[in-house]
């Protein structure tokens, strides 16, 4: 069987899997960004308790394995009465894990906005919330976008682990195809190429576009 025959026979499975991977990526990324923003800001709060909560989250999810977290969320949480569907458990685990890395990007970017900007906002008597939201965050966005591009590619590849709790993503389908056809090179080779294409030709150009758009907003382009 030629590779093209292989592809045409298995195309629906690959396409379905790719769509699930794309959905997992989008949902996990949304969750990761929301968590990263919230906990990154919490890490800078004057209140020690708020800082503490964020630190605990970051330490747990950055310091332990994503696979173990996934198993915890899917297999262990039900023991405590929290049962998540496998699809939900998948993107929640990936989103929470990458969100912990993102939190440090957010915090670092906020701290690297020049001190003079904080002072100018204070001299205009802006409230702390307005200062952050209108002056500091927009500028920190430009600083954190390039590392976020990296993180999102990491996130996309991280979603492959959800196949281990039987979410029918690209990796899951590749394994199924391999199990029925024994064409390992073709099955996993295709998965490899699809992940690469998604990272290189969707995420990267999208992030570049975002970087350019924000730079334009700053009047730098």
């Amino acid at each position: 069987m030629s590779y093209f025959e292989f592809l045409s026979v298995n195309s629906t499975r690959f396409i379905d899997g790719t769509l699930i991977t794309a959905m997992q990526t989008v949902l996990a990324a949304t969750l990761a960004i929301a968590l990263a923003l919230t906990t990154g800001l919490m890490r800078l709060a004057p209140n020690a308790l708020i800082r503490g909560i964020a630190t605990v989250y970051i330490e747990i999810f950055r310091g332990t394995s994503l696979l173990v977290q996934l198993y915890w969320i899917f297999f262990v949480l039900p023991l405590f009465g929290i049962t998540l569907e496998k699809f939900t458990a998948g993107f929640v685990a990936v989103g929470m894990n990458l969100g912990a890395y993102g939190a440090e990007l957010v915090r670092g970017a906020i701290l690297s906005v020049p001190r003079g900007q904080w002072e100018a906002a204070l001299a205009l008597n802006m409230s702390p919330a307005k200062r952050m939201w209108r002056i500091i965050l927009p500028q920190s966005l430009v600083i954190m976008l390039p590392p976020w591009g990296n993180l999102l590619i990491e996130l996309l590849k991280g979603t492959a682990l959800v196949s281990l709790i039987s979410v029918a993503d690209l990796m899951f389908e590749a394994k199924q195809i391999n199990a029925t056809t024994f064409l390992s090179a073709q099955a996993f080779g295709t998965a490899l190429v699809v992940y690469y294409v998604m990272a290189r030709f969707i995420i990267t150009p999208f992030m570049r576009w975002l970087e350019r758009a924000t730079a334009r907003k700053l009047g730098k382009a």
Partner: protein
Amino acid sequence: MTEELSKYPLELTGGDVPMVRFKNVTKQYGDLVVLDSLNLDVAEGEMVAIIGPSGSGKTTVLRMLMTLETINGGVIYVDGQPLTHMHHHGRLVRASNRYLRQMRSNIGMCFQHFNLFPHMTALENCMEGPVHVLGLSKAEARERAENLLDLVGMSDKRDQHPSRLSGGQQQRVAIARAMAMRPKVMLFDEVTSALDPEVIGEVTNVIRKLVSEHNLTMLMVTHQMGFAKDISDRVCFFFDGKIEEQGAPDELFGNPKKERTQQFLSAVKEAV
């Protein structure tokens, strides 16, 4: 702290209240005393120039007034009210954030490095405070900002971002931005120090205009001795955290009494 504060009045009253009063104000970082029991009054509408060698504490004076630095001792009064303290059961205590925000609205500041918001145009920079702090409508804020940009000669660049403006142009926008808040006291912290020599004039001319057209109280830290002499009502020479000598500009520049003032002025003259 409270013991020591009890000797200061809760507020200044009477016919002759200065716009700004520093009373025994001390600032130190660890063992390093930056300002040592500073006493300084600035009358309403007065323009005071602060000169002195670097490290003499002159910028700290402005930063304390803008509440960018805390004070370690003494009390600052602005328009008769304590700036970083407030009344509490008939005593002065450290001010709450809310009280600080209320007091801060009296004061505006321009910085050495302009600190314009890079993600906003010149006009947006000048509208930001009026809209988001004072609660003006967009239309009112725009009118106010346009008038001020006109005053500083930046009307034609109002839709440019700061990165497209020269240093002198950025500083003029920064002056308009601070003025848009209608402060009672304006602070200029070495506003020409980061500028190329050929554009210093455009900024000093704007400040001259403010002095002649507005009855603002101003404090200006500067290295431009000629400018300080022309424009100020009084010059304070700072040395080692203290006012070494102060007086009318003609007096202080023409006939300095203290040896350190003489040394500083002659050193500055040689540099030019």
